[in-house]
């Protein structure tokens, strides 16, 4: 029983880390821009493809492992930067101020286009980046074997949460972002260049999405369609935590991760059901998620 509880805890943490890394960019973009960005799944997929190909090549040369992990981050940053700029400057800029549904549809169109761009760039083959999993090794704790890479993923997600929270609360740009999240019009009235904030935020969100794909690439088969599954789960996490809330994404990821792990161990038939039951229950009690701020009433 103790072993099962320990397994639920560790599995829940690993799954939560995966969900948080994927969802944080999505919630950041929604918080600032009020855009439900379906193309986030494509950022994840591009990050995974980029890492699988570039880092796979790196490891095949037999170069030092640390460089491979750094390259993984670098590739994600570059992909996020390029894709974020293209989508925001080339597409979203044209629909700012339009109905929210229109903007969602535009991001959905971008998602579909980017799926085909993946085929054009990398074909229909699947790619593997297994070396980081091998390098990470494993440790046996009370007859449960844990992957070193999974432990690293949890540490990485925790560090990312701390870094983003610190950046939002302690840096000048973070405070500007917080102001825009709270009230865009007031922020603009106080002289904040909201357009620039939008561009930077979207690019940051795209980088985080690509980062999610890059760090997950060693664990999955990098193949067509990986962005679809991710975006559905990321939406669930963000809806539970509250759209636009970093703490919400963290808590949402932990709730979903732990509940899912408990279901797999105890009642496997409910594995999928439990994620959406949790989401439904939270939304019944808190329709805007757990961590949404009270909205000022505008007259």
């Amino acid at each position: 029983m103790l072993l099962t509880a320990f397994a639920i805890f560790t599995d829940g943490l690993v799954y939560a880390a995966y969900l948080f890394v994927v969802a944080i960019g999505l919630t950041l973009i929604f918080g600032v821009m009020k855009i439900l960005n379906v193309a986030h799944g494509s950022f994840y997929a591009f990050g995974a493809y980029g890492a699988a190909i570039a880092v796979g090549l790196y490891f095949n040369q037999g170069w030092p492992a640390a460089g491979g992990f750094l390259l993984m981050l670098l590739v994600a940053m570059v992909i996020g930067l390029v894709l974020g700029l293209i989508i925001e400057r080339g597409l979203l800029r044209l629909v700012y101020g339009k109905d929210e549904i229109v903007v969602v549809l535009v991001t959905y169109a971008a998602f579909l286009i980017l799926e085909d761009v993946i085929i054009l760039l990398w074909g229909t083959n699947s790619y593997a980046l297994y070396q980081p999993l091998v390098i990470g090794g494993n440790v046996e704790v009370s007859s449960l074997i844990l992957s070193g890479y999974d432990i690293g993923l949890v540490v990485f997600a925790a560090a990312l949460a701390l870094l983003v929270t610190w950046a939002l609360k302690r840096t000048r740009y973070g405070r500007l972002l917080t102001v825009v999240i709270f009230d865009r019009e007031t922020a603009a009235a106080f002289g904040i260049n909201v357009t620039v904030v939008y561009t930077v935020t979207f690019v940051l969100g795209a980088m985080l999405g690509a980062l999610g794909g890059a760090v997950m690439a060693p664990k999955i088969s990098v193949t067509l369609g990986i962005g679809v599954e991710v975006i559905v789960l990321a939406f669930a996490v963000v809806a539970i935590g509250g759209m636009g809330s970093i703490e919400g994404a963290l808590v949402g990821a932990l709730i979903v991760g732990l509940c899912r792990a408990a279901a797999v161990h105890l009642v496997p038939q409910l594995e999928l059901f439990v994620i959406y039951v949790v989401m439904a229950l939270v939304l019944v009690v808190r329709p805007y998620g757990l961590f949404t701020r009270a909205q000022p009433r505008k007259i």
Partner: protein
Amino acid sequence: MTYRRKWAQSALVALAALLAAGTAPAPAQQPAAPPQPIKIGIVTFLTGPAAAPFGVPGRNAAEVLIEALNKGKVPAPYNKVGIGGAKIEVKYVDEAGATANTVTEYRNLVQRDKMDVVLGYVSSGNCLAIAPVADELKTLTVFDVCGTPRIFEEKPRKYIFRVNPTATMDNVAAAHYVLRKIKNLRLYSGINQNYAWGQDSWRDFKLALGVLAPKAKSDKVLFPKLFSGEYGAEISTLLTSKSQVIHSSFFDGDLEAFIYQSTARGLPKRIPIIFTTGETSIFRLAKTITEGTMIGARGPHAMLAHETALTKWFRQVYSDRFSQLPVYPSYHMAQSLFGLKAAWEKAQAKKGGARPTTDEVIAAFEGLEFPTPSTTVRMLNGKGHQGVTDTAYGTFHYNKKTRQPELVDVVYYPAGCVNPPPDVDSVTWIKGGMKGAKCK
């Protein structure tokens, strides 16, 4: 002019015309019009997670085979141009998307594009959805990869044929192979995708072990969502089990993700795994698969194929074009195309060389026996609409000298050992103790 003179003049003109016709050179013979092409709609995954391991190898096989068939360059008995002398025209359609969309695309192929035959489908869910529509539209449809036994067991299907055997064959053979490798099996677990294919596969494996090793019990039974991609909790659950073997019918990206993640956590070293569709990943994941993993190919395909002239030819043309060896979905496509060609030409021969109707092709297809690259198919089940073949399993070994994966300890199971007899549904057959199984 009297009536008699008119008649005489007409007779003279007619006679002159007849004479002229007799002496004039005969007009040049018009070349016979080429037979009307046979239009085949091929549906498989061209995008999405199932494209790389299934859809694209199947499509690639169709491409090289149809090209060779149209040139008449396939070895005997398939050396006649196209199908019955008629060239094949093909349209490829992506199977990706919701099932409702797949059904719409099927209707488009039949009603808008006027396809003579629709061939393909990887997903068992899609096959179950297409079957009644094919009967409704009276269109000859050949399923090539999907394996759920329910297609013909729930209802006879006049217009549907499936050349490759069902999941029952894969999983009954898997049960035999597991018992050969693991003596005194007492406890086993399973992880399968949560839809028709995964559920049916586990059911047949468990039922077969219930007959072959009645004392063995199932422990962890996991059905993660299709394409979920992250299996940390499932792997922990299996690690906490005392099972002696794990059964999995995972395919596509799920199969590969599970292999990466379970290998990193040492699961296959602790508990050996049997992958009923593992062959699709054997080359790509050669360095990741754990020694001793049991591998199936849904028939004696690829590394498990019987070496015939047709097998060697197919392997050669495929690898020449795509620089890689064909995997089992490629063989399933080849089996389906050759089955269709054999049935069509049989019906055409019966009709004195005239183009047969759909009903005539169906009559010829029922109960047909024909060679394919890998093995001989007999359309014995599902009232002659469902093929049966022998099958094989092997154990993974990475040859460090050749740096190539190998399958060792390969065991072949005759068709009569692992497939239900004609017109007996798989569950009834297995639950009844697999009576009539001929395994020697």
